[in-house]
């Protein structure tokens, strides 16, 4: 190839690159629109009066007096209790499943003994189980081991209503089914930890328990952030277990997802303004967590 052609080549390519950059950003812009449109449309709709929902374009903000926060007032009224209930089991279940996952990953990754791998396989496979395969036994279990009877003194001596026994069951359920994914997340982090450091700590005379307490746990902080955020989102968003264990949105202990799923159906027609407002109210905690810790969430998802 002579120098001449290579020069024209380069200028051609430069022109290409300019056109190519423009195309690139247009494509990315369209994708952003694709990913945000349903959310944007939902948001503007949630702020409209019933009439405005019907007669303005679904993607335009409310105009000419079509603005109303009445939907949010109703949504909060209906969902507030459910959100409280959700927090009540999501927070302890998140903390405990993360802690147990960290324990298990430590015992299976940074300590060395035979036959670890088969046990590990069981943990990993647990991540992929379709929950339908355990639902009926779960219902049977909770009808045999009756938490409401076991904790009778709570309902007897405190103002907490007996339906809240369901939330205890939900907590235990979410811990148990959260352990596999938490273990896998922590394990991927622990395998990158220096084995020489673990050996140094053992030679320094620290027991396995002390090594966890003084070395591994403090160094796990970044991973705890990832796991806690991921787990909280998963548990808060769950509908299936709530449906099976609490069963009805009319229960005083119903979590927010159960309430929301029933929100549209319980009303005459499809009140989209209210539905959208309800969706945003129910999603608020996860949205806040996501906006504040998006990077940690992405990391949890990617591993």
């Amino acid at each position, binding site marked *: 190839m002579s120098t001449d052609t290579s020069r024209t080549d380069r200028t051609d390519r430069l022109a290409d690159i300019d056109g190519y950059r423009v195309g690139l950003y247009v494509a990315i812009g369209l994708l952003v629109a694709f990913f945000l449109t349903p959310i944007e449309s939902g948001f503007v709709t949630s702020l409209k009066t019933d009439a405005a929902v019907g007669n303005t374009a679904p993607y335009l903000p409310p105009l000419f007096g079509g603005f109303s926060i009445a939907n949010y007032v109703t949504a909060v009224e209906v969902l507030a209790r459910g959100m409280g209930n959700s927090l009540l089991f999501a927070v302890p279940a998140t903390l405990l499943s993360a802690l147990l996952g960290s324990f298990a990953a430590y015992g299976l990754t940074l300590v060395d003994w035979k036959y670890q791998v088969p046990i590990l396989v069981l943990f990993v496979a647990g991540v992929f189980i379709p929950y339908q395969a355990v639902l009926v036994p779960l219902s049977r279990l909770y009808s045999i081991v009756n938490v409401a009877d076991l904790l009778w003194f709570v309902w007897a001596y405190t103002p907490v209503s007996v339906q809240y026994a369901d939330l205890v069951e939900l907590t235990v359920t979410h811990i148990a089914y959260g352990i596999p994914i938490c273990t896998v997340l922590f394990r991927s982090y622990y395998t990158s930890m220096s084995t*020489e*450091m673990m*050996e*140094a*700590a053992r*030679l*320094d005379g620290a027991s396995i328990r002390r090594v966890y307490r003084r*070395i591994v746990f*403090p160094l796990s902080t970044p991973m705890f952030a990832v796991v806690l955020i991921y787990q909280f989102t998963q548990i808060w968003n769950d509908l299936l277990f709530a449906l099976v264990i609490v069963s009805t949105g009319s229960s005083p202990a119903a979590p927010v997802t159960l309430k929301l799923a029933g929100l549209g159906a319980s009303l005459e027609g499809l009140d989209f303004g209210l539905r959208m407002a309800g969706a945003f109210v129910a999603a608020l905690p996860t949205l806040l967590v996501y906006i504040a810790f998006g990077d940690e969430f992405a990391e949890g998802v990617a591993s």
Partner: protein
Amino acid sequence: MAQLSLDHLTKVFTDDDGSDIVAVDDVTVNIEDGEFLVLVGPSGCGKSTTLRMVAGLETVTSGDIRLGEESIADQKPQDRDIAMVFQSYALYPHMTVRENMSFGLEESTDMSDDEIHERVEDAADLLGIPELLGRKPGELSGGQRQRVALGRAIVRDPEVFLMDEPLSNLDAKLRSQMRTELQRLQEDLDTTTMYVTHDQTEAMTMGDRIAVLDAGELQQAGTPLECYHRPANRFVAGFIGEPSMNFFDATVEGDRLITDAFDYPLTEEMREAVDGANGVTLGIRPEDIEVAADDSPTGGDEFGTTVDVVEPMGNENAVYLGFDEDPTDTFVATVGGMRRIDAGERVVACFPSDAIHLFDDASGDALHNRSLADAEDAGAEPRV
């Protein structure tokens, strides 16, 4: 006291498919109290596994490890009264230097906080790092981390130091500086030390004695000069020394050695040594080959050669020489750095008979080692 003895130490790993891999094979070596023993060998020779067995990080398949009179082979690592310096330093990244150094004392002793504080300060003074005590490992340079790792071992005042290639993560200049410093420190503390390295310069300069390992087997244990001048076998001869010893395959015919390229006359002493051996290997170190710049070999131990490549090192030149029979199959000689010598030049190479090593082809064992008469004459008596 703290004499460390490895007694027929063997480690067998079982592979996933059930086959056994012998990593350390029947190694027996004694390390005297206060002695600095360097375990050296190519990668995969079992030297690190040996060290890790002494530390208690690997179980012992058979054989014994004794510290003083007591067998420690079955003790937990933390009960063995040893401290180890790791290749990666293995500092705790979330702790300050002070906390790193205190950790072992807090976990393995019931010393009071004041005593721990004092010992850490003392060790930091000794290493010249008192100003680093408040910093975290992430804020330290490689050399400083190295010192902290040493400090962490020193504060525990163990019977034995174990060091696993502690200098290999440092750049060349810092490495030679730390080499001397480590030696000085070991002499000061007078603690029995077992040091693993693949770097033969470290082995030669640091060790009171070195133990050369290959394929899990101990090849030779002796002072550095012993291993250099009186190698027990061909492996040690080739491993120790840079550039490596030249080897020529030969057969014995009467009082001559016949190689592909040349015949070499045997002295009476050598002939007795090779008696009964069929194939032998002739070995000679590059610095023992005399190179003369004319083209008239007198026969006997002088040979006409052609210079193939010259590698100038400054203080000396490594000259690659080829015999006329096969000019591509070169051997190396070193000559003074000021001497001018060019590729293509015809030179005479002389293999003085007192510098010749002979090895048995079948076993690799040394049959005859060089004479040390010259060195003694020069007054620099090698410690052999």
